[in-house]
C-alpha cells in the first residue's frame, strides 16, 4: 500500500514540532530553516498551514532534472534526490509548481521531502494529528466519515 502525507490544516497549532523533526531526521539538528515541511502562519485569519511535497506521480522536478538525480523510491513512491548526482543547477526548483523542492546553500544541492524512507518524522512528531501518513487511495476517508456521521447521527443536519 502506498502512503501519503495528509495534511489537515484545521488541526495545526503552529508548534513547529514537524519542522524540528524533519531537520533532526535529515541533519541531526533542530533547525526549522532546514526543514522540508514548512508551517505557514496566516495571522490575519489565524490559520496555520503545514505544506510539503505531495510526491506527484508525474513529477515535474524529476522530469526536469538534466542529470537524473531525482528518482522514485519504489517502496514508498517518494521522489528522492540523489545528492551525489545532483549538480545544484536548480532547474527542478523552477519546474516544481508547488515550490517544495529547494536549493541548500551549504551543500550546493537541492532538497525535498523523501518521506523519511517510509516513516515520516513530521507525522510522528505532530501532536494534534494535523499531519498524518495514510493510505494514498483513501486520503478522503476521514472527511467522508465525518459527513457520513453528520448524515446519520446528527438529527439537526437531516
Amino acid at each position, binding site marked *: 500500500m502506498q502512503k501519503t502525507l495528509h495534511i489537515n490544516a484545521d488541526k495545526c497549532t503552529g508548534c*513547529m514540532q514537524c519542522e524540528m523533526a524533519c531537520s533532526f531526521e535529515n541533519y541531526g539538528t533542530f533547525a526549522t530553516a*532546514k526543514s522540508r515541511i514548512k508551517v505557514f502562519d496566516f495571522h490575519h485569519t489565524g490559520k496555520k498551514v503545514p505544506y510539503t511535497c505531495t510526491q506527484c506521480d508525474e513529477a515535474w522536478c524529476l522530469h526536469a532534472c538534466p542529470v537524473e538525480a531525482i528518482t522514485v523510491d519504489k517502496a514508498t513512491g517518494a521522489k528522492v534526490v540523489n545528492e551525489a548526482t545532483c549538480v545544484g543547477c536548480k532547474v527542478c526548483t523552477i519546474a516544481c509548481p508547488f515550490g517544495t523542492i529547494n536549493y541548500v546553500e551549504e551543500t550546493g544541492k537541492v532538497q525535498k521531502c523523501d518521506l523519511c524512507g517510509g516513516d515520516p518524522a513530521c507525522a510522528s*512528531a505532530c501532536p494534534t494529528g494535523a499531519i498524518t501518513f495514510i493510505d494514498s487511495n483513501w486520503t478522503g476517508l476521514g472527511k467522508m466519515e465525518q459527513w457520513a456521521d453528520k448524515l446519520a447521527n446528527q438529527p439537526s443536519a437531516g
Partner: protein
Amino acid sequence: MSWAGKILRVDLTAGTVKSEPLNKEWARNYLGSRGLGSKYLVEEVDAKVDPLSPANKIIWATGPLTGTMASTGGRYTVITKSPLTGTIACSNSGGYWGAEFKMAGWDMVIFEGKSAKPVYLYVNDDVAELRDASHLWGKSVWETEETLKKSLQDPLTRVSSIGKAGENGILYAAVVNDLHRAAGRSGVGTVMGSKNLKAIAVRGTKGVGNIHNPKAFMKATTEKKKILAENGVTGQGLPAYGTQVLMNVINEVGGLPTRNHRDNQFEGAKDISAEAMATPRATDGKKQLVTNQACFGCTIACGRISKMDQGHFTVANKPQYWGASGGLEYEAAWALGAANGVNDLETLQYATMLCNEEGIDPITFGTTVGAVMELYDMGVLTKEQVGIEAKFGSAHALAFLVEETVNGRGFGKEIGQGSKRLTAKYGHPELSMSSKGLEFPAYDGRAIQGIGLAYATSNRGGCHLRGYTIASEVLGIPVKTDPLEHEGKPELVKAFQDATAAFDSSGLCIFTTFAWGLADLAPQMQAAIGEEYTTEELEKIGERIWNMEREFNNRAGFTAKDDSLPPRLLKEACKTGPATGKVNMLAEMMPKYYAARGWDKEGHPTAATRKRLSL
C-alpha cells in the same frame, strides 16, 4: 550539550557588537534563561543603578532546552533592573523569537550603555550588527515587525521589539515578539527604549545541534509530551479554553479581585470568561475566539486567536483591528475587566490588542485603571482630570484610557506611571494593589492565602508566576490544599518558588508544571546537556536562583518591610462567597517563610544558607 557556547555583547554607547564564550560554570550552576541571565546581571550591574541610566544592562537569554523538540522549548527571558519597581526584572516570553535566536548560534545577548540614536540589532547566524532604526522609531510593534520583514526581504525573520510605549517612557512597557507574545511585566520594554534600542531582528539557520545524547533526548521528550497530552489541564483545558478556563473557577472560590479589590467576586465574570469567548455574539452571530495557537515547540497550545465584532464602538471604521489577532488570556481579561468592573468582552479584546500593538503590560495597566476608577468614585479625581467619566464598569472609559496610555497622551501619561506612583500623587498610596510596586494579577490574596504570601515575597513584586500556588490551592496540583488556610503555606510557597525558578531557567514554559514535576524535567535536561541533574539538584539550583535574586533586591535597598501587602488585603475582609470574612494572614506566615528560606529577621540569607547554596 545543547548550548551554542557563545553570547553577544553589545555596547550601545560605542556601537560595537562582540562575541564571547558562554560562562559554562555559571550555566552549570544557574541552568540558563532566567537563572543564568540573572547571574550575569547581578555580577555586572550595581544593584543601586538607576534603571533608566546607561549603566543598567538588559539581557535576552535562552535556556538549554530553547530551540529543541522538548515540549514548550521556545522561551526566552529578558532580564534587567526594573524602572517600575527597582527590583530585579525578569520577564519571559514564548512565540518563536527565542528559538530563532538560539538557532542563529547564540545563547544570550547583553546590551550595555545607550545608543545616541535609535538602532536595532540585526542577527543572521554569525552576522550580528547594529543598524539605524530612525525609520522604525515611533512605530508600533506590529508596524516594526512588518517593516523589518519587508526591508530585510526575509519573511522568516523573527522580531522582538518595543512599540511607542517603550519609547515614551511608560514604566511598564513590554518587549513583544511575533506580534502578540510578550515579556510583559516589570517594564523591561521601558529599559529597552531608554537605550534607544528598538528591536532585535533574528534569522537563525544553524539550528540547535549539539544535544549530548540525541537518542535519549528524543526518548525522554517523547515520553514527557505524552504526559502533557494525557493530562486534563495541559491536554484538554488549556488547548480548548486557554488560561481563560480560570475565570469562572476563580470567581467561584471567591478569589476574583473586583473593582480594585473592593470586592472579591465579579458579577460579570461569566460575560468575560472562556465560555463567553466561544459563544456566538448577539450582534454578528460570530464567536470572538477563532482558534488556539501554540508557541514554538509547544504541544499544549493555550494561546488564543480572536476576532472582534467589526461594528463594536471601539473598532468601527478601524479595519486594522478587524483581522484575527492575539486574544484574551486570563490575566489580561481579569485586569482589563474584573479589576475595573468592565464586563464588555469586545472592549477587553480591543484593549488587549492595543497592549500588544504598542507593547504594555495589561496587568499593570488594567490594575492602575482600577485605582483611577476608585479615586474617581471617591471624588479625588474628576472628569476634567481624567478626560472621561471614569466610573467602575465603564467600557468607554477603559477604551479611552488604553488609547491615551499607549500613545502617551493626556491622563494616559499618569496611568503610564503605574498605580504606586499615581495613587501616591493623589494622596492615597493605600489604593495601589501592589507589592514592591508591581500590581497584583488575577487572584485575591485574602481568599487564597498562599498566593498572597507569594505576592509579598516575589522577587519582582506582586506576581503569580514566581510561585503559582493556585495550582495547589485551587486546582489540586500536585496536591490540594485549602485556599482559606494559611498553615503550611510558607513551605508550599517556597517549594513552588524554587521549582519555578528551575523550570523558568530551562527554556521551557511554566505551564508544563500542571502535568510535570522536576522529575520530568530532569531526564530531558540531562540528555540535552550531558550533566547529571537530579530532582534534588534542580530544586537546589532553583533555590540558589531565588536567593541570588533576593540578594540583588536587598542590595538595591529593599528590606523585610517591603515583603508586604496593601492594607486592604490585611484588614478589609472578603465580602462574599466561600472566603467571606477572610483577610490575608501575612504576619502569621512571614516568620515561617523566612525560617523555611533560612533567612534572618531582616530577610537576608544567613551565612549557613549562603554556604549551603554555594552563593
